[in-house]
Structure formats: C-alpha cells, structure tokens
C-alpha cells in the first residue's frame, strides 16, 4: 500500500468519502444488531435489574473516549515527527467525536450511578480522571481555534495532545490504583469476562458500532478541513 501517497490531503480527499460511506453503513447495521442483542437477547441482571442495560452504551462510549484520545495523540506525534499536514487534520478531526463520547460516558455513567450507588456523581478517581479527559479535549479544540495559522495550531495542539495522553492509563488503572466507587474492569485481555455471553456480545457489537461511527464522522470532518485549507 502506498502510505505516503495517501499522506497528501488532496489524494486522501476522495478516499475519505469512500471510508465515511462504508464506515457509516457498518455503524448503522452494527448499532441495530447491538441494540437488538442488548434489549432482546441479553437477560435481565440478577442484581441491577433492567438498569444494567445502560452498559451497552456506557462502556463502549468510555472505551471510545480513551481510544480516540490515543489515536489523536498518535496523529499529533506523527505530525510533529514527519511534518505532514494530514496528520494535524486527522488529530483535529477526531477531537470533537472524542469529546462527544467522553460526555456520553459521563452522562450515562451518572444515570447508571444513581440507581446503583445512590448518587449521580462522586469525586472518585475514575469519574474525575474521565472528566479531566473531557477538559483535555476542550483544551485541544480551544487551542486550535485560538491560533490562526493552521500549521502553528497543528504543532501547538499536538504538544497538548501528547502531554494529555498520560491521563489515559490513569483513567484505565484508576480502579486498581485507588479505592473507588466505580467497579473494576468487566472485560480484560488477561482473564475470562465476568458477565453473561449475550451481555458481552451486545457490548462488543456496540463498541464496534461506535468505532465505525467515529471513523465515518472523522472522515467527513477531515474532508471539510481539506476543503477549507485548500
């Protein structure tokens, strides 16, 4: 594959449209499948009743909030190292969708917290570090908006993205490092999942749906950036 050929914004422009269309279609189909599994296949939870069904959007949104930030930092680093215009645009195109998923993770977590913990919000390590992630996204977008020259904006925001990426492992390991109200990880690569197969399937399908959605949204946004910069 000609990676450097696609590093040119003009060459990437038509490819971004194709990617957006395919990823958008996949996102719709996966969302329908995920919702079907989540509401009609997955059983009612013995302890939390129907309230647990928030998991099918809360966990995928939280994963995406962290994953998109890491991806954003990756593009930012690539832009700093190789001085490629498309890298800065990719980082900038991911930020609003990342912020959106962070807000969704916080919102759905809050609505899940009330019936299970008895409170909408608590300043524990997991919730607070996720809120910091939202502010990092806002800071990244505000910094870009404040600098008129797009190349300077790319470089300045790239530094912020790289500094902020240290927050991602803090979010992930916060439930192990500190005594928090938030439960530990439901899914881990090192041990068997602690939930029913249908619940896990619904969660993973929704995570894929959100991933495809993010690809489609970022591709559409990067196209408008390429148009704007010319």
């Amino acid at each position, binding site marked *: 594959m000609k990676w450097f050929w696609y590093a040119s914004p003009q060459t990437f422009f038509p490819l971004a449209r194709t990617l957006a269309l395919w990823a958008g279609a996949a996102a719709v189909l996966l969302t329908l499948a995920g919702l079907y599994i989540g509401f009609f296949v997955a059983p*009612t939870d013995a302890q939390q*009743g*129907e*309230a647990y*069904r*928030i998991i099918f*959007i*809360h966990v995928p*949104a939280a994963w995406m909030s962290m994953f998109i930030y890491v991806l954003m930092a990756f593009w930012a680093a690539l832009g700093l190292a190789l001085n490629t215009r498309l890298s800065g645009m990719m980082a900038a195109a991911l930020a*609003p*969708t990342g912020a*959106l998923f962070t*807000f*969704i993770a916080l*919102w*759905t977590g809050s*609505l*899940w917290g*009330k*019936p299970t913990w008895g409170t909408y919000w608590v300043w524990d390590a997991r919730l607070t570090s996720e809120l910091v992630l939202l502010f990092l996204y806002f800071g990244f977008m505000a910094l870009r908006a404040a600098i008129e020259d797009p190349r300077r904006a790319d470089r300045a925001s790239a530094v912020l993205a790289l500094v902020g990426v240290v927050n991602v492992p803090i979010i992930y390991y916060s439930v192990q490092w500190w005594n928090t109200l938030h439960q530990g990880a439901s899914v881990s690569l090192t041990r068997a999942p602690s939930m029913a197969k249908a619940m896990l399937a619904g969660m993973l399908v929704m995570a894929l749906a959100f991933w495809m*959605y993010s690809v489609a*949204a970022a591709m*559409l*946004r990067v*196209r*408008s950036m390429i*148009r704007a910069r010319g």
Partner: protein
Amino acid sequence: MGGYAWYVWGSYGVTFLCLLIEIVVLVRREAKN
C-alpha cells in the same frame, strides 16, 4: 424497564440525540460543498 425507565431511556435518548446532531452537522457541511 422495571422502574429504571428514566435512567435507561435518559441514557439512550441523550446518546443518540448527540450522535444524530453530529451526523446532521457533518452531512449538511458535506452537502454544502
């Protein structure tokens, strides 16, 4: 929803409303050019 309707539908409603708003903004921007 076993007494949890506000929490469950409040979560799903706001999530899909947010995603829908982002899609509409991006598709309108795409169509304008």
